[in-house]
């Protein structure tokens, strides 16, 4: 039995956390019927991805020379955060607009185009 806290963490550990976040996000997106709940799922997915970017870019998780992504990882994460903010603002505006029109945020009710 090895002591988990005595071992340094590796890239893999980060990727696993990222994967869990990603899957939680996907599940949230598909399972929630509340538009804002779906939005939260998207945020989770983006964060899972972001964690991978940062992990790949981290100088502490690599051996022998440069990290696989380096600065690019950070920069991609940065862009993802900024764009996620923009996306959240937009999606929230749509949700509010939908709520104003239909007095509900249930995405299953947004089926006018189907009819």
């Amino acid at each position, binding site marked *: 039995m090895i002591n988990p*806290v005595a071992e340094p963490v590796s890239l893999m550990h980060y990727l696993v956390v990222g994967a869990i976040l990603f899957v939680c996000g996907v599940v949230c997106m598909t399972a929630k019927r509340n538009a804002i709940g779906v939005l939260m799922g998207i*945020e989770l997915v983006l964060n899972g991805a972001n964690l991978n970017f940062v992990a790949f870019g981290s100088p502490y998780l690599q051996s022998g020379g440069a990290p696989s992504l380096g600065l690019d990882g950070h920069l991609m994460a940065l862009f993802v955060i900024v764009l996620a903010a*923009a996306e959240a603002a937009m999606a929230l505006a749509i949700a509010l607009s939908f709520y104003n029109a239909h007095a509900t945020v249930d995405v299953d009710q947004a089926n006018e185009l189907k009819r």
Partner: protein
Amino acid sequence: MGIVFHTVLFYLLAILACGFAVAVVLSNNIVRMAFYLVACLGAVAGLFFLAGADFVGALQLMIYVGGTLVLLIFGVMLTARGPLANIQTSRAQWAMVGLIGASLLAVLLYAATTAGKWTHSGQIVADRSHVSKPTATPIGLALLGVRADRLNAERTDAALGKGMAGYLLPFEIVSVHLVVVLIGAAYLARARRRATTPPMAATSGDSNNLDPGD
């Protein structure tokens, strides 16, 4: 036997992040979901700090937790009223979602555990406390088009010299994009309301929704 602090903190934050992420999925109350999401994203920010991405971590705190989520909760407060706060998902849907989630997780976990192989990396960690590297400067330079981390690289192409190897163009595109999004969101979120105020109704509370009780 020693303890590697990086690892301890990593496990702590990772458990927090994953736990709250699962809580987001399992919770039915939209406001609690938002709260769990805040906690989850905060823990992820901690992971960023741990991975040496100080700037990204602070940005995550500032924009994501401080900005986006406040916006989100604001939206929740505007829309979550009574029954809307809890919209239930059916069992069949849950089963399907569970299946999709499980298979996705399996694939991703496989990819993650084999990552070491395709990135040629070992399992080395530098002791975080002895390294202090500026993180903001190279990012800032990169956004201006200068790749500070590649200046010493053996491969110096012409683009690098002209400052085109960085992220100047994406940076500009994103900034324009943000302006567009701001205007768009403001346009979308504006409400249509009756120009004339409805006639004065007797206010002795009639519907539950408009109960004057605090």
